[in-house]
């Protein structure tokens, strides 16, 4: 078994309104920063042991599908690194 850290990044699907990001963008502009757009994302780091990177990815992918992301509004990606 090898120790891995899987990083799951969950973003709103393109076109889904992100009111928190919009509020954050406006607050940055009020502070005088110049920016065109801002998107927010959630990131989860999951430590786990698996036979190989493929198995680790598969397990974390299922975690994302079943709980961490809501497929109606989210896209996600999983990256796996040896720990």
């Amino acid at each position, binding site marked *: 078994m090898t120790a891995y850290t899987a990083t799951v990044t969950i973003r709103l699907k393109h076109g*889904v*309104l*992100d*009111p*928190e990001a919009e509020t954050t963008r406006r607050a940055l502009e009020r502070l005088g920063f110049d920016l065109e757009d801002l998107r927010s994302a959630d990131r989860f780091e999951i430590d786990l042991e698996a036979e190989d990177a493929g198995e680790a990815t598969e397990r974390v992918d299922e975690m994302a599908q079943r*709980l*961490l992301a*809501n497929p*109606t*509004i989210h896209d996600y990606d999983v990256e796996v690194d040896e720990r």
Partner: protein
Amino acid sequence: MGTVTVAIVRFGGSNCDRDAERALEHLEIDAEIVWHEDGLPDGTTGIMLPGGFSYGDYLRAGAMAAQSPIMDEVREAAGEGVPILGVCNGAQVGCESGLTEGAFTTNESARFQCEPVYLRVERADTPWTERYEEGDVIEVPIAHGEGRYEITDERLEELEDDGRILFRYCTEDGELTDEANPNGSKHNVAGVLGDRETVAVLMPHPERVTLPDIGNTDGQGVLEGFERADA
């Protein structure tokens, strides 16, 4: 009357369960609060998923409660035609658990909103809306931070074509305007039906406008759906 026993499912953080119980009792609908870990009691003939902040809205509102084993029983009951109503957090749990389609997510304002709103009855031929006429406008309060109905445009059109939209936010006169849409919900959707008409979820709180002492009883007809669906 009195033959229906509605299980009001209490999760950690539910806080409208007692309101729901009182409202149902007022309508002489037998109701019982059920702790989610105890499962559904035998003889459950209706299920209400009440409002609140189950699991502190961690991850997404309703996401954790949707994973409770009792929800497997609730889905099974839904398939058997048992009437199921999700209100506010219960609506979020309903969507997260796949009882109904779409998602209720962060209000356009990015704020928690607690205010009365007007709802237009989109269908009056479901158990939840038989008391009303199609196009009727009822006044019901909302109290949520994550109530914006979100779904793909294509799927929303299909739900509309299938008549699965139950309530929309509207003006006092029943017009669907952006101003009357409190949270930015797509097409002003406030409540939807599941695969069966016996399953419905909505963000506004009918149980808060059921007791005559409150002054407004517009929500009674929704809760009476438990009896109608059972008949």
